[in-house]
């Protein structure tokens, strides 16, 4: 038996377009396949991708807050 929805569905906001950014940034490999500039001795390739973990989480969090 179907049960009624437990909470109000969220608005779908245009900000969702931002969720494409992590795909573009991460699949465009040649944009970050480089040793320099280094950060604290860590090559660009590594710190840039780690930075995108944080940016990606921030974007998803932002979209969540906008749509809530």
């Amino acid at each position, binding site marked *: *038996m*179907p*049960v009624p*929805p*437990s*909470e109000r*569905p*969220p608005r779908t906001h245009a900000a*969702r377009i931002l*969720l*494409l950014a*992590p*795909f573009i940034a*991460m*699949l*465009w*490999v*040649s944009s970050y*396949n*480089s*040793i320099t500039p*280094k950060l*604290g*001795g*860590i*090559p660009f*390739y*590594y710190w840039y*991708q*780690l930075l*995108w*973990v*944080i940016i*990606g*989480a921030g*974007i*998803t*969090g932002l*979209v*969540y807050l906008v749509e809530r």
Partner: protein
Amino acid sequence: MRWTVLVVFVLLFALITVIGFLAGRWRRGDLDLLHEWGLGGRRFGTFVAWFLIGGDLYTAYTFIAIPALVFGAGAIGFFAVPYTIIIYPLLYVVFPRFWSVCRRHGYVTTADFVRGRFGNGSLALAIAITGIVATMPYIALQLVGIQVVIGAMGIGGQGLLHDLPLIIAFVILAAFTYTSGLRAPALIAVVKDLLIYIAVVAAIIVVPIELGGYGKIFAAIPAAKLVLPSPKGSTFGLYSAYATLALGSALALFLYPHSATGILSSKSAGVVRRNAALLPAYSFLLGLIALLGFMAVAAGLAKNPEFAPGFKQYGPSFAVPALFLASFPAWFAGLAFAAIGIGALVPAAIMSIATANLFTRNIFKEFINPACTDAEESQVAKLASLVVKLGALVFVIALPLKYAVQLQLLGGIWIIQTLPAVMIALYTRFLNGWALLIGWICGVLSGTWMAAMLHFAGTVYPIHLLGMTIPGYAALWSLLINIVVSFALSLVFNAIASDRHKDATAAEDYA
């Protein structure tokens, strides 16, 4: 024998065993109902779901295999980072819909949803079997993760004695999963994650200090391994390999039965959305863990005679255990090993529950005993979870490791073939059930053929297009074939005999 390491390891293992058995009483529910035993009553809030899904997706095998890949092959091993970045926008957009429709109709598995959406038992069976077959070697690899840390503690021996610690760990796992269901891994995941975070944070601070800083660590890595080699001539080289591995792995991840189980155990679609923003904390951790592979290179562990037997037996997988043994006091290495060992039990428990749910709902109840009671259904699932784990154990003990690794690679290629019937079907009912089944067959066959051409040693298959060579993840290529076939045949089948009237779900179920 490294006694201090072993004692700490055993104590922490004893602790989680107790937690595992007590978990059945936590947020008490009637464990004779499948959704109580197999989905924790769909009651987990943001906090518990974070630990549960985190413990589910970032497995002990990951914690061993990713730094091992970085240790051996360098930059390409870092693909786990973009992979675990792009899964979360996907989780945020697609899977709250999946949660909603499953909640409305009481679906416990992806195959339940496909059964309801398409009213096609054959397609649902294909989805269920794909899930079971893809997950079995994954469970086996978790046990391998335990094997590596047991070996690192210096427990040797021959024959039965060699396998005894693994059998003990397995019996513990089987017993608490049987009695407590999904509540056990959910609670244990909290302990496991605390241990993992402590171990990794300590490692990324202490090891660089011992080795003279990150600059020195990266200076010790050969330039060829530090970044991907630039493609020369008419090929995209490792660029397209890296990107397609990340994308294909990301598309496949939430199709695995254990991911679906984690998502469906959440108490609301909002919990799923919130966790899409909170779970990346694990991705950051995974990136740091990947760097442990380079630290193991810089520390010269492969040339250290103390670790020679370990590397001889386990290969690059021994890099992380060796790094902890070399850099920390014995008791702390014990803590880190326990984190890895427990980190294997959590996903192994969830995977065995997820495959048991599939077997019970989509094979036993569908084809063997449709009239079974709720209690019988739950009982079958508990027994199925035992059989699944026994299978994985026999697999690990009786067969060479390379078969488990190869089957897990194939499993990724197979599971992604369920994407049209599960993920695309959340948005459109244009697709026809029989067209999807034929698409699935084409995807599985073409993907397996590509893997066979690579002698089952890798998954990056080069395709040739307009004079360019594009090496890419075979799962993604075969998925494209699957999607094209599914849509093309749907066009034909819908015109001849549409099956849209068999859809048990309605548009508003997905919001």
